């Protein structure tokens, strides 16, 4: 018996896969799963309905699922792991400005020591011919500028670090 906690949007499911039986929240399901190809295309059959899903495993237990023109993110944790830490993931640090997408740093508007207000534009990033203004996540003082104009950055790269104002 293996239990999986699955979060889809704001809904949680307890899926129990035991040999070739499947239970959701303790209730046995008459579902059948068929792998349609080697690229993670899955067919889920119920008695009279079915659904084709493409599963893309992202980091760790996250899957991006594409089905019927929609794309949904699902988190899967196996029973043991889930029992240990119930959603203990730390929120993104408030004092860090991270790149929301891969791209080119078009402009850096601040330097270390500058006082900034929450919402103030710190960096301009360009990606896929779009320019986006990236704003301070909090008010404070610039502790560190981690990139220079013209730099190519990955998604999630640290751009600017702030610290609370001292007064």
């Amino acid at each position, binding site marked *: 018996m293996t239990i999986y906690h*699955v979060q889809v949007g704001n809904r949680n499911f307890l899926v129990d896969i035991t040999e070739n039986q499947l239970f959701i929240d303790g209730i046995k399901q008459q579902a059948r*799963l068929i792998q349609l190809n*080697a690229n993670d295309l899955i067919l889920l059959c119920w008695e009279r309905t079915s659904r084709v899903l493409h599963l893309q495993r992202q980091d760790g237990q996250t899957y991006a699922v594409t089905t019927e*023109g929609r*794309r949904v993110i699902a988190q899967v944790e196996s029973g043991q792991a889930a029992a240990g830490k119930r959603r203990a993931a730390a929120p993104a640090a408030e004092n860090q400005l991270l790149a929301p997408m891969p791209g080119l740093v078009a402009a850096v508007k601040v330097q270390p020591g500058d006082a900034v207000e929450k919402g103030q534009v710190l960096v301009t990033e360009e990606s896929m011919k779009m320019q986006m203004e990236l704003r301070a996540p909090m008010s404070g003082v610039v502790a560190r500028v981690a990139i220079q104009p013209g730099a190519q950055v990955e998604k999630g790269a640290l751009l600017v670090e702030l610290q609370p104002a001292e007064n």
Partner: protein
Amino acid sequence: MKVLVANRGEIAIRILRACREMGLPTVAVYSEPDREALHTHSADEAVLIGPAPASQSYLNIPAILQAAHKTGAQAVHPGYGFLSENADFCRAVEEAGLVFLGPSPETLALTGDKLAARKAAREAGLPILPGPDVPLGEDTQEILGAEIHFPVLVKAIAGGGGRGIRLAHSPQELDQMVSAARQEALAAFGDGSVYLEPLVQNARHIEVQVLADGRGNILCLGERECSIQRRRQKLIEESPAFGMNSSLRELLFDHATRLARALHYRSLGTVEFLLGKDGQLHFIEINPRIQVEHPVTEMVNGLDLVQAQLQLAMEGTLPFTRADVQPRGWAIEARVLAEDPGQGFIPATGSILHLQVPGGPGIRVDSALYPGMPVTADYDSLLAKVIAWGTDRPAAIARLRRSLQEFQIGGVPTDLEFLSQVIDSPAFTSGRVDTTFLDTFQPPARADDDSFARDIAIATAFAAHQRRSPDPRPSRPAQALDAWKLAAWREQIHH
């Protein structure tokens, strides 16, 4: 005529298709990351022109001319974006003795200067929004003394493709918006000059497709409506425009024809207008090139605009007459973009791991996708265009809806669901939209049947289970890889 296509992505494929159908040999150019791109291996020959940054590859005039020289290309098609509106490029192509598949350098010099284009349009008798014909000076406070009504648009003189435009709601915002527009324009066009234009509230975007031979023979191939825009980028376009009547259409065509005649216009072009709630037309600009949304015009009229460009260049005359232009039905295009609706539509990257393209009656798909294609952040996020034709607007919408549901792209987030939500909105289906529609549009919360999330939970739990405890029966390692790849294992859970 050997044609070099100085572009990439779906428009390069579009142009290569037209050339192939006409039996013309083709040359593609590509940047380093595009060695694996579909356009690179769809042409007869392909030449590397530089590294990823467009400034060093797709905007690299000497490298492109050298590629043409090396391959013996006799004509250059610039597509849209990149160098397509660049008068210097056009001039350099023509000075190298090659055919530029677009307007003359003089036309491009004029259309590239929004103030000059305004002036030309005014002189040709087109309705122009009020404002001076000179750029805004450094001191924006000065202009505040003059008669200026807010909100006001700050527009880059060298602008294009919706870039270098900002909206200032109040005198307080003006400085900030002017400087933002200047900066974006400087980065994009190398020219930070801007001017102010009154905002037409709740306007619709209507444009006229023009084809002209440069000697005064001008055809208007119908109008398009492109009011569904996000961040000034068109997202959904259609032809004809909703609720168009013949007198307004005649007026549009008359304006477009007069401007094309005044410019001795050659090749394809689009004259863009705003249509105010009061029914007044206002000229915006002229786009001197093939447009992203040209397929809706092609489907309604049964014409091939790129082939028309090529034939015009080869034969010197328009390949058809006004009598050949017999519009039928309605066409709507939706742009499928690599972007993440869950994160404010920021551009997304990845690989095309799964691809199922819609088909059947009335559906055209223009794309450069293939299974496995990497989607990088180097260029724009347009993955594909889906164009649906129907006998009337509801029929076209029904087909577009159906084909957006059929379109399956795995491996990169897209706007497919958002597009469906837009075309299902009552405002869109009833034609009550203007260019601000998407500013406030909130897709309705999906009333998911319980089965939706449940199915996803089952499928992902199953996939995780497979990863942890792969089926022990066929021994997994080494050759099992082939079994997986070729035979596609099948695992069943049943009662």
